Protein backbone atom coordinates (compact mmCIF):
# COMPACT_ATOMS: atom_id res chain seq x y z
CA UNK A 1 0.00 0.00 0.00
CA UNK A 2 2.63 2.47 1.07
CA UNK A 3 5.04 1.37 -1.70
CA UNK A 4 2.31 2.08 -4.19
CA UNK A 5 1.98 5.63 -2.93
CA UNK A 6 5.72 6.05 -3.08
CA UNK A 7 5.90 5.07 -6.76
CA UNK A 8 2.99 7.24 -7.89
CA UNK A 9 4.57 10.29 -6.34
CA UNK A 10 7.73 10.20 -8.45
CA UNK A 11 6.46 11.15 -11.92
CA UNK A 12 4.26 13.92 -10.55
CA UNK A 13 7.25 15.40 -8.78
CA UNK A 14 9.28 15.58 -11.96
CA UNK A 15 6.42 16.79 -14.11
CA UNK A 16 6.71 20.56 -14.16
CA UNK A 17 3.38 22.30 -14.40
CA UNK A 18 1.27 19.83 -12.46
CA UNK A 19 1.89 21.51 -9.14
CA UNK A 20 -1.56 20.44 -8.05
CA UNK A 21 -0.14 17.03 -7.19
CA UNK A 22 3.02 18.27 -5.53
CA UNK A 23 1.61 18.69 -2.05
CA UNK A 24 -0.35 15.41 -1.82
CA UNK A 25 2.58 13.44 -3.20
CA UNK A 26 5.04 14.97 -0.76
CA UNK A 27 2.62 14.12 2.03
CA UNK A 28 2.23 10.56 0.72
CA UNK A 29 6.01 10.13 0.67
CA UNK A 30 6.20 11.44 4.22
CA UNK A 31 3.46 9.09 5.46
CA UNK A 32 5.07 6.17 3.64
CA UNK A 33 8.40 7.02 5.23
CA UNK A 34 6.86 7.14 8.70
CA UNK A 35 5.00 3.91 7.99
CA UNK A 36 8.20 2.16 6.95
CA UNK A 37 10.19 3.50 9.90
CA UNK A 38 9.74 0.44 12.16
CA UNK A 39 11.02 -1.79 9.36
CA UNK A 40 14.13 0.32 8.93
CA UNK A 41 14.96 0.91 12.56
CA UNK A 42 13.33 -1.54 14.90
CA UNK A 43 13.61 0.18 18.25
CA UNK A 44 10.89 0.12 20.88
CA UNK A 45 11.98 3.42 22.30
CA UNK A 46 11.80 5.30 19.00
CA UNK A 47 8.39 3.78 18.29
CA UNK A 48 7.23 4.89 21.75
CA UNK A 49 8.32 8.47 21.05
CA UNK A 50 6.59 8.44 17.69
CA UNK A 51 3.36 7.10 19.21
CA UNK A 52 3.38 9.94 21.74
CA UNK A 53 4.01 12.38 18.90
CA UNK A 54 1.01 10.98 17.01
CA UNK A 55 -1.23 11.39 20.05
CA UNK A 56 -0.13 14.97 20.64
CA UNK A 57 -0.49 15.79 16.94
CA UNK A 58 -4.17 14.80 17.09
CA UNK A 59 -4.63 16.93 20.22
CA UNK A 60 -2.77 19.96 18.86
CA UNK A 61 -4.53 19.95 15.49
CA UNK A 62 -7.92 19.63 17.17
CA UNK A 63 -7.01 22.55 19.44
CA UNK A 64 -6.28 24.60 16.35
CA UNK A 65 -9.66 23.59 14.91
CA UNK A 66 -11.34 25.31 17.86
CA UNK A 67 -9.21 28.41 17.43
CA UNK A 68 -10.33 28.95 13.83
CA UNK A 69 -13.70 29.96 15.27
CA UNK A 70 -12.00 32.83 17.10
CA UNK A 71 -12.09 31.13 20.49
CA UNK A 72 -8.89 30.50 22.36
CA UNK A 73 -9.55 27.63 24.77
CA UNK A 74 -6.98 26.96 27.48
CA UNK A 75 -8.48 23.66 28.59
CA UNK A 76 -7.51 21.27 25.84
CA UNK A 77 -5.26 19.03 27.91
CA UNK A 78 -8.12 18.84 30.41
CA UNK A 79 -10.42 17.57 27.65
CA UNK A 80 -7.75 15.02 26.74
CA UNK A 81 -7.77 14.11 30.41
CA UNK A 82 -11.56 13.72 30.42
CA UNK A 83 -11.32 11.30 27.49
CA UNK A 84 -8.40 9.46 29.05
CA UNK A 85 -10.02 9.08 32.46
CA UNK A 86 -13.40 8.08 31.02
CA UNK A 87 -11.76 5.38 28.90
CA UNK A 88 -9.48 4.31 31.72
CA UNK A 89 -12.26 4.08 34.30
CA UNK A 90 -14.60 2.27 31.90
CA UNK A 91 -11.82 -0.19 31.18
CA UNK A 92 -10.80 -0.69 34.79
CA UNK A 93 -14.14 -0.78 36.60
CA UNK A 94 -16.49 -2.03 33.87
CA UNK A 95 -14.01 -4.16 31.98
CA UNK A 96 -14.92 -2.73 28.59
CA UNK A 97 -12.67 -3.46 25.65
CA UNK A 98 -10.55 -0.61 24.19
CA UNK A 99 -12.51 -0.81 20.95
CA UNK A 100 -15.62 0.24 22.86
CA UNK A 101 -14.09 2.68 25.32
CA UNK A 102 -12.06 4.76 22.84
CA UNK A 103 -14.92 5.82 20.56
CA UNK A 104 -17.42 6.17 23.39
CA UNK A 105 -14.99 8.23 25.47
CA UNK A 106 -14.41 10.50 22.47
CA UNK A 107 -18.15 10.95 21.96
CA UNK A 108 -18.80 11.65 25.65
CA UNK A 109 -15.90 14.14 25.71
CA UNK A 110 -17.42 15.92 22.71
CA UNK A 111 -20.76 15.98 24.54
CA UNK A 112 -19.16 17.44 27.68
CA UNK A 113 -17.32 19.98 25.55
CA UNK A 114 -20.56 21.08 23.90
CA UNK A 115 -22.42 21.21 27.22
CA UNK A 116 -19.66 23.37 28.67
CA UNK A 117 -19.44 25.34 25.44
CA UNK A 118 -23.08 26.39 25.72
CA UNK A 119 -22.71 28.68 28.76
CA UNK A 120 -19.16 29.57 27.74
CA UNK A 121 -20.37 30.97 24.41
CA UNK A 122 -21.33 34.03 26.48
CA UNK A 123 -17.67 34.73 27.14
CA UNK A 124 -15.52 36.43 24.54
CA UNK A 125 -11.83 36.70 23.72
CA UNK A 126 -9.65 36.65 26.84
CA UNK A 127 -12.56 35.97 29.16
CA UNK A 128 -13.31 32.82 27.18
CA UNK A 129 -9.67 31.76 27.42
CA UNK A 130 -9.69 32.33 31.17
CA UNK A 131 -13.06 30.68 31.74
CA UNK A 132 -11.90 27.57 29.94
CA UNK A 133 -8.60 27.66 31.84
CA UNK A 134 -10.46 27.65 35.17
CA UNK A 135 -12.67 24.84 33.89
CA UNK A 136 -9.57 22.80 33.05
CA UNK A 137 -8.17 23.35 36.52
CA UNK A 138 -11.50 22.29 38.00
CA UNK A 139 -11.37 19.05 36.01
CA UNK A 140 -7.98 18.20 37.51
CA UNK A 141 -9.27 18.91 41.03
CA UNK A 142 -12.26 16.64 40.38
CA UNK A 143 -9.84 13.89 39.32
CA UNK A 144 -7.88 14.45 42.54
CA UNK A 145 -11.10 14.36 44.55
CA UNK A 146 -12.28 11.17 42.82
CA UNK A 147 -10.47 8.99 45.36
CA UNK A 148 -10.25 5.35 44.41
CA UNK A 149 -12.50 5.73 41.37
CA UNK A 150 -10.16 8.03 39.49
CA UNK A 151 -6.96 7.10 41.30
CA UNK A 152 -6.68 10.52 42.98
CA UNK A 153 -3.20 11.96 43.45
CA UNK A 154 -1.47 8.63 42.84
CA UNK A 155 -2.88 8.19 39.34
CA UNK A 156 -5.07 5.57 37.72
CA UNK A 157 -3.48 2.18 37.17
CA UNK A 158 -4.70 -1.13 35.79
CA UNK A 159 -6.21 0.10 32.53
CA UNK A 160 -6.65 -2.66 29.97
CA UNK A 161 -3.82 -2.60 27.42
CA UNK A 162 -4.51 -2.27 23.73
CA UNK A 163 -3.34 -4.78 21.12
CA UNK A 164 -1.60 -6.83 23.83
CA UNK A 165 1.21 -4.35 24.54
CA UNK A 166 2.60 -4.89 21.05
CA UNK A 167 4.58 -1.75 20.20
CA UNK A 168 4.50 -2.27 16.46
CA UNK A 169 0.76 -2.90 16.35
CA UNK A 170 0.22 0.18 18.49
CA UNK A 171 2.49 2.16 16.19
CA UNK A 172 0.40 1.34 13.14
CA UNK A 173 -2.85 1.83 15.03
CA UNK A 174 -1.90 5.33 16.13
CA UNK A 175 -0.44 6.18 12.72
CA UNK A 176 -3.74 5.19 11.12
CA UNK A 177 -5.73 7.05 13.77
CA UNK A 178 -3.65 10.19 13.22
CA UNK A 179 -3.98 10.08 9.44
CA UNK A 180 -7.75 9.55 9.63
CA UNK A 181 -8.16 12.29 12.25
CA UNK A 182 -6.07 14.75 10.26
CA UNK A 183 -8.04 14.04 7.10
CA UNK A 184 -11.31 14.54 8.97
CA UNK A 185 -10.14 17.78 10.58
CA UNK A 186 -8.79 19.03 7.25
CA UNK A 187 -12.10 18.33 5.56
CA UNK A 188 -13.89 20.03 8.45
CA UNK A 189 -11.77 23.16 8.27
CA UNK A 190 -12.23 23.64 4.53
CA UNK A 191 -15.89 22.69 4.52
CA UNK A 192 -18.74 25.18 4.56
CA UNK A 193 -18.83 24.97 8.36
CA UNK A 194 -15.13 25.75 8.61
CA UNK A 195 -15.55 28.80 6.40
CA UNK A 196 -18.44 29.92 8.58
CA UNK A 197 -16.25 29.55 11.65
CA UNK A 198 -13.56 31.71 10.08
CA UNK A 199 -16.20 34.32 9.30
CA UNK A 200 -17.25 34.33 12.97
CA UNK A 201 -13.61 34.70 13.99
CA UNK A 202 -13.22 37.77 11.80
CA UNK A 203 -16.29 39.52 13.11
CA UNK A 204 -19.01 37.91 15.15
CA UNK A 205 -21.26 40.93 14.62
CA UNK A 206 -21.11 40.77 10.83
CA UNK A 207 -21.44 37.00 10.91
CA UNK A 208 -24.56 37.07 13.05
CA UNK A 209 -26.01 39.90 10.95
CA UNK A 210 -25.99 37.70 7.84
CA UNK A 211 -27.93 35.02 9.67
CA UNK A 212 -25.21 32.78 11.10
CA UNK A 213 -26.17 31.30 14.43
CA UNK A 214 -22.94 32.30 16.10
CA UNK A 215 -23.35 30.47 19.41
CA UNK A 216 -24.26 27.19 17.73
CA UNK A 217 -21.26 27.26 15.40
CA UNK A 218 -18.90 28.11 18.22
CA UNK A 219 -20.30 25.20 20.25
CA UNK A 220 -19.97 22.94 17.22
CA UNK A 221 -16.30 23.87 16.82
CA UNK A 222 -15.70 23.08 20.48
CA UNK A 223 -17.53 19.77 20.07
CA UNK A 224 -15.41 18.72 17.09
CA UNK A 225 -12.20 19.80 18.80
CA UNK A 226 -13.13 17.98 22.01
CA UNK A 227 -14.07 14.83 20.12
CA UNK A 228 -10.55 14.49 18.80
CA UNK A 229 -9.02 15.56 22.10
CA UNK A 230 -11.03 12.82 23.80
CA UNK A 231 -9.95 10.36 21.10
CA UNK A 232 -6.29 11.21 21.65
CA UNK A 233 -6.70 11.02 25.41
CA UNK A 234 -8.54 7.69 25.34
CA UNK A 235 -5.94 6.24 23.00
CA UNK A 236 -3.23 7.48 25.34
CA UNK A 237 -4.96 5.85 28.32
CA UNK A 238 -5.02 2.43 26.68
CA UNK A 239 -1.53 2.77 25.25
CA UNK A 240 0.10 3.93 28.48
CA UNK A 241 -2.22 1.90 30.84
CA UNK A 242 -1.28 4.35 33.63
CA UNK A 243 -2.71 7.86 33.97
CA UNK A 244 -1.40 10.68 36.10
CA UNK A 245 -3.44 13.88 36.60
CA UNK A 246 -0.25 15.92 36.10
CA UNK A 247 -0.20 15.02 32.40
CA UNK A 248 -3.42 16.96 31.88
CA UNK A 249 -2.93 20.00 34.07
CA UNK A 250 -2.59 23.68 33.30
CA UNK A 251 1.02 23.41 32.12
CA UNK A 252 0.12 20.53 29.81
CA UNK A 253 -2.54 22.73 28.24
CA UNK A 254 -0.01 25.52 27.80
CA UNK A 255 2.37 23.09 26.14
CA UNK A 256 -0.36 22.03 23.70
CA UNK A 257 -0.90 25.72 22.93
CA UNK A 258 2.85 26.04 22.41
CA UNK A 259 2.82 23.12 19.96
CA UNK A 260 0.22 25.00 17.93
CA UNK A 261 1.86 28.41 18.18
CA UNK A 262 5.43 27.34 17.48
CA UNK A 263 4.39 25.70 14.24
CA UNK A 264 2.11 28.54 13.24
CA UNK A 265 -1.51 28.94 14.17
CA UNK A 266 -2.53 30.23 10.75
CA UNK A 267 -1.85 27.06 8.81
CA UNK A 268 -3.09 23.50 9.08
CA UNK A 269 0.44 22.09 8.96
CA UNK A 270 1.58 24.35 11.81
CA UNK A 271 0.55 22.22 14.79
CA UNK A 272 1.83 19.07 13.07
CA UNK A 273 5.28 20.56 12.55
CA UNK A 274 5.31 22.22 15.96
CA UNK A 275 4.33 19.05 17.81
CA UNK A 276 6.83 16.91 15.92
CA UNK A 277 9.67 19.29 16.70
CA UNK A 278 8.81 20.02 20.33
CA UNK A 279 8.19 16.35 21.19
CA UNK A 280 11.04 14.87 19.17
CA UNK A 281 13.73 17.49 19.80
CA UNK A 282 14.20 16.78 23.54
CA UNK A 283 14.47 13.09 22.70
CA UNK A 284 17.40 13.62 20.35
CA UNK A 285 19.16 15.47 23.15
CA UNK A 286 18.46 12.71 25.64
CA UNK A 287 21.91 12.93 27.23
CA UNK A 288 21.00 16.37 28.57
CA UNK A 289 17.79 15.11 30.14
CA UNK A 290 17.62 17.71 32.92
CA UNK A 291 18.47 20.52 30.53
CA UNK A 292 16.03 19.57 27.78
CA UNK A 293 13.34 22.06 28.93
CA UNK A 294 15.90 24.79 28.22
CA UNK A 295 16.13 23.51 24.66
CA UNK A 296 12.38 23.85 24.18
CA UNK A 297 12.42 27.30 25.77
CA UNK A 298 15.24 28.47 23.49
CA UNK A 299 13.35 27.15 20.49
CA UNK A 300 10.25 29.04 21.62
CA UNK A 301 12.23 32.26 22.01
CA UNK A 302 13.88 31.84 18.59
CA UNK A 303 10.46 31.41 16.99
CA UNK A 304 9.01 34.36 18.91
CA UNK A 305 11.78 36.78 18.01
CA UNK A 306 12.62 35.66 14.48
CA UNK A 307 9.55 33.96 12.97
CA UNK A 308 6.32 35.83 13.53
CA UNK A 309 4.32 33.20 11.63
CA UNK A 310 5.85 30.24 13.40
CA UNK A 311 8.02 27.55 11.88
CA UNK A 312 5.64 27.33 8.91
CA UNK A 313 6.73 30.83 7.91
CA UNK A 314 10.39 29.82 7.80
CA UNK A 315 10.55 29.03 4.03
CA UNK A 316 8.90 32.35 3.27
CA UNK A 317 11.40 34.21 5.43
CA UNK A 318 14.32 32.44 3.78
CA UNK A 319 12.90 33.11 0.31
CA UNK A 320 12.35 36.80 0.95
CA UNK A 321 15.76 37.11 2.58
CA UNK A 322 17.36 35.38 -0.41
CA UNK A 323 15.59 37.50 -3.01
CA UNK A 324 16.40 40.62 -0.99
CA UNK A 325 20.04 39.64 -1.07
CA UNK A 326 20.01 38.96 -4.80
CA UNK A 327 18.27 42.26 -5.43
CA UNK A 328 20.84 43.99 -3.27
CA UNK A 329 23.66 42.35 -5.23
CA UNK A 330 22.12 43.34 -8.54
CA UNK A 331 21.77 46.95 -7.42
CA UNK A 332 25.33 46.96 -6.19
CA UNK A 333 26.41 45.52 -9.52
CA UNK A 334 24.51 48.16 -11.49
CA UNK A 335 25.75 51.01 -9.38
CA UNK A 336 29.26 49.63 -9.60
CA UNK A 337 29.10 49.92 -13.37
Amino acid at each position, binding site marked *: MSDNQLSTSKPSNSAIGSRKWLKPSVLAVLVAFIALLPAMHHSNYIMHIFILTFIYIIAAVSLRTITISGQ*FPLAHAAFMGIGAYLAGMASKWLGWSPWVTIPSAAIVTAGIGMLIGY*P*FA*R*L*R*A*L*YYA*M*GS*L*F*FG*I*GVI*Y*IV*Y*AGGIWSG*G*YAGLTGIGPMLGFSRIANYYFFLGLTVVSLLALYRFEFSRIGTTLKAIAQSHLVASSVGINEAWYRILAVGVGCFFAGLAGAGYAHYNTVLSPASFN*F*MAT*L*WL*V*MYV*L*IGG*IDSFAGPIIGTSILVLLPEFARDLK*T*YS*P*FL*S*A*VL*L*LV*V*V*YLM*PQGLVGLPRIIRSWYSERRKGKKIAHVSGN
Partner: protein
Amino acid sequence: MELTVATITNLLILSSMYILVALGFAFLFNMLGILNLAHGAIYMLGGYIGLALISAMGINQWVALAITALVIGAFGIFLERFCFRPFVGDFNRIIMVCVALTVVLQTGVNILVGTQILSLPPFFEGILRVGPVSVSYERIGTFAIGAFLLGVVIWFVNRTKWGQQMQAISQDIEGASLQGINVYRVSALASFIGCALAAIAGCLIGAYLGLGPYMGDFMLVKILMLVFLAGIGSISGIFIAGLVLGALDSILPLLVSGAASDAIAVAIVVVLLLIRPQGFFGREAT
Protein backbone atom coordinates in the same frame (compact mmCIF):
# COMPACT_ATOMS: atom_id res chain seq x y z
CA MET B 1 -12.84 30.13 68.94
CA GLU B 2 -9.32 29.01 68.18
CA LEU B 3 -10.48 27.74 64.80
CA THR B 4 -12.36 30.93 63.99
CA VAL B 5 -9.36 33.10 64.72
CA ALA B 6 -7.07 30.82 62.74
CA THR B 7 -9.48 30.91 59.80
CA ILE B 8 -9.77 34.67 59.88
CA THR B 9 -6.01 35.23 60.05
CA ASN B 10 -5.54 32.68 57.27
CA LEU B 11 -8.14 34.46 55.18
CA LEU B 12 -6.49 37.83 55.69
CA ILE B 13 -2.99 36.55 54.93
CA LEU B 14 -4.03 34.62 51.82
CA SER B 15 -6.11 37.54 50.54
CA SER B 16 -3.36 40.10 51.08
CA MET B 17 -0.76 37.92 49.37
CA TYR B 18 -3.06 37.14 46.41
CA ILE B 19 -3.82 40.84 46.00
CA LEU B 20 -0.16 41.80 46.32
CA VAL B 21 0.87 39.49 43.48
CA ALA B 22 -2.23 40.18 41.40
CA LEU B 23 -1.69 43.95 41.47
CA GLY B 24 1.63 43.65 39.67
CA PHE B 25 0.03 41.45 37.04
CA ALA B 26 -2.93 43.80 36.70
CA PHE B 27 -0.80 46.92 36.17
CA LEU B 28 0.82 45.60 33.01
CA PHE B 29 -2.34 43.85 31.90
CA ASN B 30 -4.53 46.92 32.22
CA MET B 31 -2.02 49.25 30.62
CA LEU B 32 -0.63 47.29 27.70
CA GLY B 33 -2.85 44.20 27.61
CA ILE B 34 0.08 41.93 28.41
CA LEU B 35 -1.04 38.59 29.82
CA ASN B 36 2.08 37.94 31.87
CA LEU B 37 1.86 34.21 32.48
CA ALA B 38 5.42 34.33 33.86
CA HIS B 39 4.29 36.35 36.89
CA GLY B 40 3.95 33.19 38.97
CA ALA B 41 7.50 32.19 38.12
CA ILE B 42 8.75 35.68 39.03
CA TYR B 43 7.03 35.37 42.40
CA MET B 44 8.72 32.00 42.89
CA LEU B 45 12.10 33.45 41.87
CA GLY B 46 11.67 36.22 44.44
CA GLY B 47 11.27 33.67 47.21
CA TYR B 48 14.37 31.76 46.15
CA ILE B 49 16.52 34.87 45.79
CA GLY B 50 15.44 35.95 49.26
CA LEU B 51 16.37 32.51 50.57
CA ALA B 52 19.76 32.63 48.84
CA LEU B 53 20.52 36.07 50.26
CA ILE B 54 19.50 35.13 53.78
CA SER B 55 20.83 31.61 54.18
CA ALA B 56 23.75 31.50 51.76
CA MET B 57 25.09 35.04 52.14
CA GLY B 58 23.97 35.65 55.71
CA ILE B 59 22.43 39.06 55.11
CA ASN B 60 19.95 40.46 57.62
CA GLN B 61 16.55 39.28 56.50
CA TRP B 62 14.94 42.72 56.28
CA VAL B 63 17.82 44.00 54.17
CA ALA B 64 17.57 40.83 52.10
CA LEU B 65 13.85 41.45 51.54
CA ALA B 66 14.61 44.94 50.23
CA ILE B 67 17.46 43.71 48.01
CA THR B 68 15.25 40.96 46.60
CA ALA B 69 12.56 43.46 45.76
CA LEU B 70 15.07 45.70 43.97
CA VAL B 71 16.71 42.83 42.07
CA ILE B 72 13.44 41.35 40.89
CA GLY B 73 12.15 44.84 40.11
CA ALA B 74 15.16 45.42 37.88
CA PHE B 75 14.47 42.05 36.28
CA GLY B 76 10.94 43.31 35.69
CA ILE B 77 12.23 46.37 33.85
CA PHE B 78 14.39 44.11 31.71
CA LEU B 79 11.40 41.86 30.95
CA GLU B 80 9.17 44.79 30.07
CA ARG B 81 11.76 46.23 27.69
CA PHE B 82 12.93 43.10 25.89
CA CYS B 83 10.21 40.49 26.30
CA PHE B 84 6.87 42.31 26.45
CA ARG B 85 7.22 45.65 24.72
CA PRO B 86 8.14 44.27 21.28
CA PHE B 87 4.97 42.17 21.27
CA VAL B 88 2.33 44.51 22.65
CA GLY B 89 -0.98 43.58 21.05
CA ASP B 90 0.23 40.17 19.93
CA PHE B 91 -1.38 37.77 22.40
CA ASN B 92 0.12 34.61 20.89
CA ARG B 93 3.71 35.72 20.99
CA ILE B 94 3.42 37.14 24.50
CA ILE B 95 2.18 33.85 25.91
CA MET B 96 4.98 32.05 24.06
CA VAL B 97 7.56 34.35 25.66
CA CYS B 98 5.96 33.88 29.05
CA VAL B 99 5.86 30.10 28.82
CA ALA B 100 9.51 30.08 27.74
CA LEU B 101 10.38 32.34 30.70
CA THR B 102 8.43 30.16 33.12
CA VAL B 103 10.15 27.03 31.83
CA VAL B 104 13.60 28.61 32.08
CA LEU B 105 13.02 29.89 35.62
CA GLN B 106 11.40 26.71 36.93
CA THR B 107 13.95 24.40 35.34
CA GLY B 108 16.80 26.61 36.48
CA VAL B 109 15.62 26.60 40.08
CA ASN B 110 14.93 22.89 39.82
CA ILE B 111 18.49 22.15 38.68
CA LEU B 112 20.19 24.55 41.08
CA VAL B 113 18.15 23.86 44.22
CA GLY B 114 16.02 20.78 43.66
CA THR B 115 12.34 20.13 44.20
CA GLN B 116 12.41 19.77 47.98
CA ILE B 117 10.29 22.22 49.94
CA LEU B 118 12.52 24.84 51.53
CA SER B 119 11.60 27.58 53.91
CA LEU B 120 12.85 31.08 54.67
CA PRO B 121 13.66 31.80 58.31
CA PRO B 122 10.62 33.42 59.97
CA PHE B 123 10.49 37.19 59.88
CA PHE B 124 8.75 37.37 63.26
CA GLU B 125 8.91 35.16 66.32
CA GLY B 126 6.73 34.61 69.32
CA ILE B 127 3.03 34.22 69.95
CA LEU B 128 0.53 36.88 70.91
CA ARG B 129 -1.94 35.75 73.58
CA VAL B 130 -5.12 37.69 74.21
CA GLY B 131 -7.31 35.85 76.67
CA PRO B 132 -8.02 32.37 75.30
CA VAL B 133 -6.85 33.25 71.79
CA SER B 134 -3.26 32.93 70.63
CA VAL B 135 -1.93 34.10 67.28
CA SER B 136 1.67 33.88 66.17
CA TYR B 137 3.42 37.16 65.38
CA GLU B 138 4.45 35.53 62.09
CA ARG B 139 0.86 35.64 60.90
CA ILE B 140 0.14 39.11 62.21
CA GLY B 141 3.37 40.46 60.77
CA THR B 142 2.87 38.87 57.36
CA PHE B 143 -0.57 40.36 57.12
CA ALA B 144 0.67 43.72 58.43
CA ILE B 145 3.40 43.95 55.80
CA GLY B 146 0.94 42.92 53.09
CA ALA B 147 -1.64 45.47 54.23
CA PHE B 148 0.98 48.21 54.55
CA LEU B 149 2.29 47.56 51.01
CA LEU B 150 -1.24 47.51 49.63
CA GLY B 151 -1.91 50.85 51.29
CA VAL B 152 1.26 52.28 49.78
CA VAL B 153 0.32 51.00 46.34
CA ILE B 154 -3.18 52.45 46.60
CA TRP B 155 -1.70 55.76 47.68
CA PHE B 156 0.76 55.59 44.80
CA VAL B 157 -1.86 54.78 42.18
CA ASN B 158 -4.37 57.38 43.32
CA ARG B 159 -2.29 60.23 44.69
CA THR B 160 0.97 60.46 42.78
CA LYS B 161 1.56 61.73 39.27
CA TRP B 162 3.05 58.41 38.16
CA GLY B 163 0.06 56.51 39.43
CA GLN B 164 -2.38 58.81 37.72
CA GLN B 165 -0.43 58.42 34.50
CA MET B 166 -0.80 54.65 34.93
CA GLN B 167 -4.55 55.04 35.32
CA ALA B 168 -4.72 57.28 32.27
CA ILE B 169 -2.84 54.72 30.17
CA SER B 170 -5.09 51.91 31.27
CA GLN B 171 -8.14 53.96 30.30
CA ASP B 172 -6.91 54.93 26.85
CA ILE B 173 -3.37 54.36 25.71
CA GLU B 174 -3.49 56.66 22.68
CA GLY B 175 -5.25 59.43 24.53
CA ALA B 176 -2.65 59.21 27.28
CA SER B 177 0.27 59.48 24.90
CA LEU B 178 -1.44 62.44 23.18
CA GLN B 179 -1.43 64.16 26.56
CA GLY B 180 2.33 63.85 26.66
CA ILE B 181 2.60 60.78 28.87
CA ASN B 182 5.62 58.66 28.07
CA VAL B 183 3.75 55.36 27.90
CA TYR B 184 6.72 53.04 27.92
CA ARG B 185 8.53 54.79 30.75
CA VAL B 186 5.40 54.45 32.89
CA SER B 187 4.94 50.82 31.91
CA ALA B 188 8.57 50.09 32.82
CA LEU B 189 7.88 51.62 36.23
CA ALA B 190 4.72 49.56 36.56
CA SER B 191 6.67 46.42 35.70
CA PHE B 192 9.29 47.33 38.32
CA ILE B 193 6.66 47.79 41.01
CA GLY B 194 4.71 44.70 39.97
CA CYS B 195 7.71 42.40 40.02
CA ALA B 196 9.01 43.88 43.28
CA LEU B 197 5.63 43.27 44.95
CA ALA B 198 5.60 39.71 43.63
CA ALA B 199 9.10 39.15 45.01
CA ILE B 200 8.12 40.45 48.46
CA ALA B 201 5.06 38.21 48.44
CA GLY B 202 7.29 35.31 47.42
CA CYS B 203 9.58 35.91 50.41
CA LEU B 204 6.68 36.30 52.86
CA ILE B 205 4.92 33.17 51.59
CA GLY B 206 8.27 31.40 51.60
CA ALA B 207 8.58 32.08 55.32
CA TYR B 208 4.93 31.35 56.05
CA LEU B 209 4.22 28.25 53.90
CA GLY B 210 7.54 27.23 52.29
CA LEU B 211 9.13 27.39 48.87
CA GLY B 212 8.91 25.01 45.93
CA PRO B 213 9.92 25.45 42.27
CA TYR B 214 6.33 25.00 41.15
CA MET B 215 4.62 27.23 43.72
CA GLY B 216 4.27 29.84 40.99
CA ASP B 217 1.74 27.78 39.02
CA PHE B 218 -0.71 27.80 41.91
CA MET B 219 -0.27 31.53 42.46
CA LEU B 220 -0.61 32.25 38.74
CA VAL B 221 -3.99 30.54 38.65
CA LYS B 222 -5.10 32.53 41.69
CA ILE B 223 -4.06 35.88 40.24
CA LEU B 224 -5.72 35.10 36.92
CA MET B 225 -8.92 34.35 38.82
CA LEU B 226 -8.60 37.57 40.78
CA VAL B 227 -7.90 39.81 37.83
CA PHE B 228 -10.61 38.36 35.62
CA LEU B 229 -13.24 38.25 38.34
CA ALA B 230 -12.47 41.90 39.05
CA GLY B 231 -12.53 42.71 35.36
CA ILE B 232 -10.04 44.35 33.04
CA GLY B 233 -9.11 47.87 34.08
CA SER B 234 -10.23 47.66 37.69
CA ILE B 235 -7.81 48.02 40.59
CA SER B 236 -10.28 48.33 43.46
CA GLY B 237 -12.19 45.28 42.15
CA ILE B 238 -9.06 43.21 42.75
CA PHE B 239 -9.34 43.85 46.48
CA ILE B 240 -12.90 42.57 46.67
CA ALA B 241 -12.14 39.59 44.43
CA GLY B 242 -9.05 38.90 46.55
CA LEU B 243 -11.11 38.80 49.75
CA VAL B 244 -13.66 36.50 48.08
CA LEU B 245 -10.98 34.10 46.87
CA GLY B 246 -9.16 34.20 50.20
CA ALA B 247 -12.44 33.40 51.94
CA LEU B 248 -13.12 30.48 49.58
CA ASP B 249 -9.63 29.09 50.11
CA SER B 250 -9.67 29.38 53.88
CA ILE B 251 -13.28 28.49 54.71
CA LEU B 252 -14.09 25.73 52.19
CA PRO B 253 -11.40 23.31 53.45
CA LEU B 254 -13.17 23.37 56.84
CA LEU B 255 -16.46 22.24 55.30
CA VAL B 256 -15.25 19.84 52.60
CA SER B 257 -12.11 17.79 52.84
CA GLY B 258 -9.28 17.44 50.36
CA ALA B 259 -9.32 18.33 46.70
CA ALA B 260 -13.12 18.55 46.60
CA SER B 261 -12.90 21.95 48.31
CA ASP B 262 -10.53 23.19 45.59
CA ALA B 263 -12.89 21.86 42.93
CA ILE B 264 -15.82 23.69 44.54
CA ALA B 265 -13.80 26.93 44.77
CA VAL B 266 -12.94 26.72 41.08
CA ALA B 267 -16.55 25.93 40.20
CA ILE B 268 -17.73 29.00 42.12
CA VAL B 269 -15.23 31.15 40.24
CA VAL B 270 -16.37 29.76 36.89
CA VAL B 271 -20.02 30.38 37.76
CA LEU B 272 -19.23 33.95 38.87
CA LEU B 273 -17.42 34.54 35.59
CA LEU B 274 -20.39 33.20 33.65
CA ILE B 275 -22.78 35.45 35.56
CA ARG B 276 -20.69 38.51 34.71
CA PRO B 277 -18.83 37.71 31.47
CA GLN B 278 -16.89 40.99 31.59
CA GLY B 279 -15.84 40.75 35.22
CA PHE B 280 -17.54 42.47 38.12
CA PHE B 281 -15.94 45.89 38.03
CA GLY B 282 -14.15 46.05 34.69
CA ARG B 283 -14.80 46.78 31.08
CA GLU B 284 -15.53 44.60 28.04
CA ALA B 285 -12.63 42.60 26.61
CA THR B 286 -11.43 43.84 23.27
